[in-house]
Each structure stands twice: as structure tokens, then as C-alpha cells.
């Protein structure tokens, strides 16, 4: 399979952008990022694109391919209709620096404000803890996150309503869940989740889960369980009465 394909790529900075058509010859086994690199080499040496690993593990090459948030290095050309121009746009939810490169630093600021791990007293004299594999597995799913921020990008709360100041976004709910569900951790993040992190803005429409390249079940396994814990603490007076007898950590 060798074929000339049109790629319609965003060029420009800030608000001044346009979609520019580039043609290049594509072959078997190529991914979108390969095509972008080829275009860079052949006809657009100043095309800005961020990438690192080409293996779906660094989370740098996030973009929107034919309108869907994807990692360019993991999107095979074979799964796209190449008879029509293929659009490649930068993520919409973050400020555009140039072409396909956005400034995702807002995410790092949000992450900093999520309470750090606060371990309980070690179980053993050597300072280590005991944990059942089964209890480890639940938070472990969330550790797969590669911080590609595709989930942040697709979430309408950020993407359409730009509530960056009031909503931490799915990536950070995954992070908070990873810490909250860790049996060793003793910090309480529920008040922050309900307040400044704005978990109530999430309307569980699951777009984050759909685009996650690590297949983390963001909505069902992280956000909804956290929402339920928030209900425990703030919206369930009857349950609260019963729970006087049972604690979450034991």
C-alpha cells in the first residue's frame, strides 16, 4: 500500500490559525506521527509538533485526528479513511503555542494542589507496610496514566466551558482516586474534590474514558467512586448515622 494522501494540518499561533493541506506518500504500517514527520522533512520544516517516545508512553504527541483526541504515534493510518483529507489539529482545551503544540502547564499547576500522599505509621520496624495484592490493584489501574491530557482535552467542562479555574478535570480525578483508594494513605481529599476541584461539574458523559489511550476506566472506576465518597461525606445524612460504626481505612 503506497498512496498519496492529503493531510489538513493546523498552522499558526494563538488565535491566528488556519488549516493547510499537505500531500505526502504513505505506506504500510505508518502512524499519523510518521506522516507528520515526513511532511516536516519534505515540505514544512517549520511545522511544530511535540513527540518523544513514538511508543504511546510519554504522552507528548496528543492531538485531534479527524476531530477525535488521539496520540499521533498510536494512530495507524490503516484505521483512517485516507480517501479524504485527514485533519490534524492541536488540542483545543489548552492555549496554542504553535501549530500542533499546546501549553499544557495548567495541568501541572492543578496537580500540585492535590494533597500529597500521607502514609499511616509503617506496619513493620523497617519502615515498610503490608498490603494485599487485591487492595493494590484498584489504585494501580490509575498509575497507568501517561499524562497525555487527552481526557482533559475532550472534557466539555474544560473544552467548551473553559472552567479551568474551578474544575480539576478527569486526569486529576484519576490521580486523586489513586491516592484516596490507597490503603496506606490517610489524607482526606473529599472536601477539595467537592469544592475547588469541582467534581460536581462532571456529568459522567464518559468522553474521557473513551479517549484514554491507556484504557483507564476513568469515569466508572475513578470519578463515580469519588462522587460516591463525596455523597458519603456531604449528601447522605442517613448513611452517616450508620457509618459511625465503620471506618473507611480499616
Amino acid at each position: 500500500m503506497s498512496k498519496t494522501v492529503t493531510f489538513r494540518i493546523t498552522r499558526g499561533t494563538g488565535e491566528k490559525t488556519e488549516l493547510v493541506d499537505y500531500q505526502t506518500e504513505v505506506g504500510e504500517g505508518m502512524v499519523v506521527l510518521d506522516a507528520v514527520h515526513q511532511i516536516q522533512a519534505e515540505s514544512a520544516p517549520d511545522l511544530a509538533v511535540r513527540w518523544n517516545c513514538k511508543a504511546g508512553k510519554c504522552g507528548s504527541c496528543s492531538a485531534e485526528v479527524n476531530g477525535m483526541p488521539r496520540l499521533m504515534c498510536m494512530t495507524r493510518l490503516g484505521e483512517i479513511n485516507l480517501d479524504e483529507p485527514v485533519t490534524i489539529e492541536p488540542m483545543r482545551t489548552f492555549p496554542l503555542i504553535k501549530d500542533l503544540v499546546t501549553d499544557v502547564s495548567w495541568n501541572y499547576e492543578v496537580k500540585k494542589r492535590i494533597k500529597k500522599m500521607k502514609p499511616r505509621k509503617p506496619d513493620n520496624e523497617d519502615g515498610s507496610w503490608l498490603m494485599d495484592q487485591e487492595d493494590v490493584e484498584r489504585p494501580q489501574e490509575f498509575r497507568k496514566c501517561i499524562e497525555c491530557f487527552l481526557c482533559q482535552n475532550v472534557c466539555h467542562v474544560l473544552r467548551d466551558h473553559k472552567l479551568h479555574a474551578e474544575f480539576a478535570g478527569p486526569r486529576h480525578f484519576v490521580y486523586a482516586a489513586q491516592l484516596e483508594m490507597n490503603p496506606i494513605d490517610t489524607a482526606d481529599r473529599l472536601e477539595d474534590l467537592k469544592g475547588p476541584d469541582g467534581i460536581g461539574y462532571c456529568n459522567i458523559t464518559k468522553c474521557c474514558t473513551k479517549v484514554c489511550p491507556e484504557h483507564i476506566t476513568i469515569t466508572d472506576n475513578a470519578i463515580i467512586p469519588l462522587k460516591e465518597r463525596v455523597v458519603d461525606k456531604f449528601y447522605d445524612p442517613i448513611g452517616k448515622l450508620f457509618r459511625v460504626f465503620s471506618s473507611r481505612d480499616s
Partner: protein
Amino acid sequence: MAQTHLPLAPQRGYGETTRKDPWWLPTLGTFIGLSGFIVYMTWAGMQNEHFSYQGYLSPAYSPLLFWTDPEGVTGLAGAERFAYFGPQPSWWPGAIPFLPALLILWAPGGFRITCYYYRGAYYKAFWQSPPNCAVGKPHKTYSGERSFPLIIQNIHRYFMYLAVVFLFILAHDVYLGMWFIDPATGAKSFGIGLGTIVLALNVTFLSAYTLGCHSLRHVIGGFKDRISGAPIRKSLYKGCTGLNKNHMRWAWTSLVWVGFTDFYIRMCSMGVFTDIRII
């Protein structure tokens, strides 16, 4: 916000997207499916007749709290034998039509309306928030489930407790559906008809849906950081998680089947279908 102080891309207009797939199709499917069910159940709940046949009681009317057969309707044609608390109460204001289905449907209805799966689904299909992933929406402002009215969704777990009670009632209806009355003598005999199977599948599908509820998953184990400590809790949590993975599938299967169960019994009662006796 961001350190570079560059502008964000403006909000896209309603339906605006660079997606090329038929993204509106699943949204439309949900809209049609849910609307169809609501219309049918409202209609069925307002009929006030043909909701029972032999030992079968339509799940749209179960539990039947009170019931008095209308004049001229007697025996098997009526439904008095299903009423838990006897005849229609005398204090019922005559100006309001007595609709026993509407006395109970608020419970399973509220359960589904506040269900996490359905919420996500109807926010998309009915409220277009968003119409689908990465597609522009019609709203300029947004408050989500953070404030009134949608903050009320947080009562879902109370509906879940009720829904679990309903499972027992509906299981009892399967038992009732195994007793056939001889219209001539009034004698009861054990049997299994196609309707019994329809009712049994109904409670099975509803159980798969209800017992995979996110709130149930939370209250039986999810609230704990350490689930491995209690073996019974651990197995319950695992079972619930298994059903929860297919929550959407069970939500639709049970929805369709509840409607079909009512339809089947209605058709039998109207004499359109002939119930097949298996045993």
C-alpha cells in the same frame, strides 16, 4: 491560568466538530430508545386495565398496593387477587383518577433517572451536553451536577435501596406466575407458562442491572480502601463490579424487557396472544 498567557480557542458552535464519523447516531439512538420507553410506560400505566392475566401481574403495576375491580369485571378478568392492601381506599379523592401504576412507578423511575449510566446518556441525548464527544454544544453556561437542580442526583443511593426491595417483590411475582387458576372451579394448580418465563427473565435482567449499580458497589465495599480484610464483602464487591462493567448493557436489556413483559401480559389479557403452557 497557563503560564504562557496565550488565548484559548473559542467555544465551538452547536454541532460544530471536525469528526467525520456519524457521531449523532448513538445519541439519536439513545433519544429514540428512552423516549419510546417513557411514552409506552406512561401509556401502559394509565390504561388501568389488562395488566394481569392468570397469575401474571405486569411489572408496571407491581406491587399493586390497592385495587378494586371495576363493575362487571370479575374473577380472572380482574386483578383484585394481586392487591397487597385490599380495595381502593375510600379516602381516595374522587376527582383524582386512581392509577395504581403511578403510585409505584416513581420508585423504579427515580432509580433510573438518577442512575449514573442514564444520567450520562440523557445529558447527551436530551440535553446535548455535549451532543457527543468533541462536538460543540448549544449551551454557553454550565453548572453540571454541582448546584441545584442536578445536585439532587446525589440521592441515587436511596432509590437503589428501594430498587433492591422491588427485586424481592418482582421475584415473588414470578412465584405467583407459577399458579394457574381454573376459571370454572377457581382451583389453583402449579404450572409454568411462557409468561412465567417472561416474568422470570424480567427479574433476572432487573437484578443484573440493579446489583451492578455504582452506588451499591460503593456501599458494599467501594467506600473501603482495604477491601481484602472481609471475605464476604470482598466477594460481594467483586460480583457487583462484574455486573457493573456491563451496567449499560443491563440497563438497556432490563428496560426493554420490562416494557415487553407488560406488553406480553397485556396482549394475553386482551386475548391477542395465547399464553403457552409449558408445564
